[in-house]
């Protein structure tokens, strides 16, 4: 891996600029990925927050879904937030009938699990691997991880509406996903962990 990797942000829809802004602070070359040709130029990819059904539709329409699957299967590191977490899930609950995912992480994700916007919330969450200070996490119509396979490491969870612990941060090899949006808070610790993964240092 080069000393200054190129990290793409999938720019089909959503809070792309916020991810680019955080990545720009971390000594990487951050670029937008709009089509398959852009995807070829990046060492790793961030899948942003947004509307997962729209993102999935546009990925299929622009011929990005298969190239994304190939790159992820070939070991490209990727980090998904919220809609991006859904995109990286092998199994999806609560999606639309035609909704496809890129997959890669052996987990079942439930879309909009925490409810609609009036139930969106922020909470302090302990995240393994980014220091002792809890992470100030913003959840927007957020998904949670319903179950994970044996290769998946759970990095954090919060109580759901029924008080049961719900998984909101996971890692499987070079793939990471969070239900919440570190790009919205200015706390770069999770992005830094991802950059370390990309550089082969974590």
């Amino acid at each position, binding site marked *: 891996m080069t000393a200054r990797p190129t990290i793409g942000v999938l720019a089909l*829809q959503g*809070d792309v600029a*916020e991810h680019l802004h955080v990545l720009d602070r971390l000594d990487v070359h951050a670029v937008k990925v709009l089509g398959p040709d852009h995807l070829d130029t990046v060492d790793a990819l961030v899948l942003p927050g*947004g509307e997962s059904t729209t993102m999935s539709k546009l990925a299929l329409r622009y011929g990005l879904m298969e190239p994304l699957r190939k790159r992820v299967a070939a070991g490209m590191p990727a980090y998904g937030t919220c809609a991006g977490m859904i995109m990286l899930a092998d199994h999806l609950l609560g999606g639309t009938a035609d909704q496809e995912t890129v997959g890669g992480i052996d987990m079942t994700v439930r879309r909009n699990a925490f409810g609609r916007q009036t139930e969106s919330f922020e909470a302090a969450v302990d995240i393994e691997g980014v220091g002792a200070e809890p992470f100030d996490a913003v959840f927007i119509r957020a998904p949670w991880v319903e179950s994970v396979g044996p290769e998946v490491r759970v990095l954090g969870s919060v109580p759901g509406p029924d008080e049961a612990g719900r998984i909101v941060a996971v890692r499987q090899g070079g793939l990471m996903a969070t239900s919440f949006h570190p790009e919205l*808070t200015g706390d770069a610790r999770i992005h830094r962990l991802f950059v370390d993964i990309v550089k082969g240092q974590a």
Partner: protein
Amino acid sequence: MATNASNPTDNAVGTQRVKRGMAEQLKNGVIMDVVNAEQAKIAEDAGAVAVMALERVPADIRKDGGVARMSDPDMIDGIVEAVSIPVMAKVRIGHFVEAQVLESLGVDFIDESEVLTPADEAYHIDKWAFTVPFVCGATNIGEALRRIAEGAAMIRSKGEAGTGNVVEATRHMRSIRSEIKRLGTLDEPELFGAAKELRAPYEIVKEVAALGKLPVPLFSAGGVATPADAALMRQLGAESVFVGSGIFKSGDPARRADAIVQATLHYEDPAVIARVSRGLGEAMVGINLDDLADSERYAGRGW
């Protein structure tokens, strides 16, 4: 494994970050006006990031006249049921009870909209009092900042809704953009003066001057009818585009919706805009602004 299960009371709903964060998720997309479940499905299938549920599109409000109000809750429920993307709905300016009703229905965003007949001639809604986020229209930076001070989590240009004529939206986007640039050139005493002149809180004026942008997403609305209109708004600085009458008042709504989504995404690529603009069928007819009496102009509603 780390867990916060011992401390469930930490969760805070309806915070500024949660509201503005929702607005951020809708960026780089198209929000479409729909009047029934069938249209909502067409919008969702075309790749809309959200739908705006309302009883009549602005072009019909114009045609029918009378008082335009919040939609029937049954109709909003029907649309919430029909799609899985976020649902927005409109309330009259200052009508906080309509907003309470929409919040109780569980809509994801409220548009305090000049397209409906204003309910209060002095005050907009206190949007901080709600859990649900609000978007408000603006024609210039002063209006935008006053709405943000009242708690709006998103600003959109007013444009002139229901005309199929993008000229007013262009004027508003250009005005907001150039006034943001101007604020960036001012020193401290001048910023105090600007706050007074804009009738907006100094803290927000100062924040905009430092950021070089609004502290909330800036979208565009009002008169967008073609893929090129949508791309024009993006190139003028809109982070997403609302399309009202433009889609379902046209000859082939599904195709036009799809084309506008593509042009909004590839707004810097004329070849894509050209491709999606081919053979779209009839656009909505449109109205010349010179033909509208002042009383028929919605952009002047709100202050």
